[in-house]
């Protein structure tokens, strides 16, 4: 049991520092596991036989051991960090007790016991003495509360540390690990989340490393784990591209008879193009991370076709406010990282909301989980949003399933064709959102008879179209959301054009107000502020 003297002397900064160190060791061990994995994967292409198979098995065992050590150090770090937070809280209560004692007045002895210390004049007043006695009891109660908080934190941390799995635990074979993947009965984000929680930390670590392409894409898996898996998937793909390009270069250099040089050159060009797109994305994420604000999370990466990606700025699982931004026509993996483009818009919404509501955490997510139309002709067709709706709905409900703590304020915002995408999705699925925002949307994503009241779950529906934007006059995919009969609340976004919503201050301010739930402060066109 922690006593008064020990709590006074406790140094939570050291616990916090050691927690951070353990987390850092965990990350490094994870990269060691990945290094072993990379070599292990190469081996079958170099040598097949009994000795090679034995080496494969041994390397797989070491990889699993590093993964177990990774999750063990992570668990140690979490336990110490939580203990440090508990001790900080308990010491604050002790400080309060000391402040109370000074004003009572009372004396706190070195063993934590409290005695009244009335001034001589107080002894002449029964009322004053009674007040001092009551105050003394309150000080003792505050000290008891502080010790209770400290000891509860201590017990919780001890329990967590006792359950840390060690690297010498039996390692899963590749076949055992494959059997840990979700079966056909695991489908919805809630089911995925339940399956993920049923795994041990070491199993989760191993699955992320061995099956990054599966885990990174699963709605219902926490954002941090998806990010780990997708970053590895990105590295794997780049490595595969580099290997293939080297192979092509070798074939072209050998110039064997019958070689189809044109086909190889074309393949090489495409691979290098894909490599450039992936590099550009990663550089952009690094750039956002280097700004010192909330970190980026890569929640999906799929380079096939025009490419898809989901990028969060700030961890949505720990955020109080979450906005998911769905971009529109011409968006693809190759241009979301352009200057002033979608990742920038996503980061702008995060910083605006965080500045407006600094006491709360905001996560802003770019959702390019669908194939957006390539041009205006394609944007006249509903097929793009129809085919993306279920994935968007699953992503939204997954945000609820993986969220830690109290219910977050979730906003789904679509720009241009993305506006019709969010509308269509909310019309067909219960997305569990609180707000739906149409920004320059060419229709609500429903039939012409549809309106804001049709969106499932009853989110607050917002709409805007800037003065210089012609898209608001195009009811291509249902009723224009800014019209009175649609039933949305229309907000001011200034007089800019179709791409100016994130560079116009009034537009940014109003979007931040919606995201942070400051709805009374949202201004309508024509309002003076």
């Amino acid at each position: 049991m922690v006593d008064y003297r020990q709590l006074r002397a406790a140094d939570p900064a050291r616990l916090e520092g050691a927690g951070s160190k353990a987390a850092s060791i965990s990350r490094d061990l994870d990269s060691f596991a990945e290094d072993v994995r990379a070599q292990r994967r190469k081996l079958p292409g170099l040598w097949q036989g009994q000795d090679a198979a034995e080496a494969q098995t041994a390397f797989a065992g070491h990889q699993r051991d590093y993964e177990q050590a990774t999750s063990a150090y992570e668990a140690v770090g979490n336990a110490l960090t939580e203990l440090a937070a508990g001790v900080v809280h308990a010491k604050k209560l002790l400080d309060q007790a000391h402040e109370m004692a000074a004003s009572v007045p009372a004396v706190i002895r070195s063993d934590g016991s409290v005695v009244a210390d009335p001034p001589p004049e107080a002894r002449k007043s029964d009322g004053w003495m009674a007040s001092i006695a009551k105050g003394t009891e309150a000080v003792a109660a505050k000290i008891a509360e502080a010790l209770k908080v400290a000891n509860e934190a201590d017990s919780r941390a001890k329990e967590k540390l006792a359950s840390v799995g060690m690297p010498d635990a039996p390692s899963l074979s590749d076949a055992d690990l494959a059997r840990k993947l979700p079966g056909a009965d695991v489908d919805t984000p809630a089911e995925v989340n339940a399956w993920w929680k049923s795994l041990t930390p070491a199993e989760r670590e191993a699955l992320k490393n061995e099956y990054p392409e599966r885990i990174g894409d699963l709605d219902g898996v926490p954002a941090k784990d998806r990010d780990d898996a997708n970053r590895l998937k990105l590295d794997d793909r780049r490595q595969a591209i580099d290997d293939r390009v080297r192979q092509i270069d070798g074939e072209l250099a050998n110039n064997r008879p019958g070689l189809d040089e044109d086909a190889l050159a074309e393949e090489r060009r495409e691979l290098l193009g894909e490599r450039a797109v992936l590099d550009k994305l990663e550089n952009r994420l690094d750039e956002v991370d280097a700004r010192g604000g909330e970190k980026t999370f890569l929640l999906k990466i799929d380079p096939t076709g025009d490419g898809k990606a989901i990028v969060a700025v700030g961890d949505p699982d720990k955020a109080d406010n979450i906005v998911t931004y769905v971009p529109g026509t011409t968006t693809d993996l190759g241009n979301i990282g352009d200057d002033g483009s979608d990742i920038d818009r996503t980061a702008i919404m995060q910083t605006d909301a965080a500045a407006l509501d600094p006491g709360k955490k905001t996560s802003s997510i770019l959702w390019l989980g669908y194939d957006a139309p390539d041009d205006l002709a394609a944007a006249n067709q509903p097929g793009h949003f129809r085919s993306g709706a279920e994935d968007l709905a699953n992503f939204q409900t997954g945000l609820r399933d993986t969220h830690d703590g109290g219910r977050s304020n979730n906003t789904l915002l679509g720009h241009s064709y993305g506006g019709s995408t969010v509308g269509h999705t909310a019309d067909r699925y219960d997305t569990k959102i609180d707000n739906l925002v149409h920004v320059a949307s060419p229709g609500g994503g429903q039939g012409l008879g549809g309106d804001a009241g049709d969106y499932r779950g009853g989110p607050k529906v917002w709409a805007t179209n800037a003065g210089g934007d012609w898209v608001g006059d195009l009811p291509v995919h249902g009723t224009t959301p800014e019209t009175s009969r649609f039933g949305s609340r229309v907000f001011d976004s200034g007089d800019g054009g179709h791409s100016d919503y994130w560079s116009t201050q009034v537009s940014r301010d109003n979007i931040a107000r919606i995201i942070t739930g400051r709805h009374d402060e949202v201004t309508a066109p024509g309002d003076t502020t």
Partner: protein
Amino acid sequence: MEIRYAEVRDCARKVGAVGEEVREFLDRARSGLDAAAEGNEGFTAVDAFRDVAEKLHRQSTAVGDNTVKSAAALAAAADDHERTDLYVRGELAKTREALGDASPV
């Protein structure tokens, strides 16, 4: 399948380097963890942490040792196979030569 000995040895070298790096890394990282216990007497979790950290360090270092050994075993196996390959090829060439077959092996 032809065995690519040089690349196998490179693979073994890289895995072995991971094992060595892990051992050195864990030794360096240890002092940062030990600091948690300083100034935090009376907390049973801190005692538990000391035990867990010690055990984790010992076992993770052992994984590093085992990784180095496995990598060395792979490299040695590759060396053995290559020597055997060369010997067999040499013997085959001699046999063919003795039989008057001058075609390359």
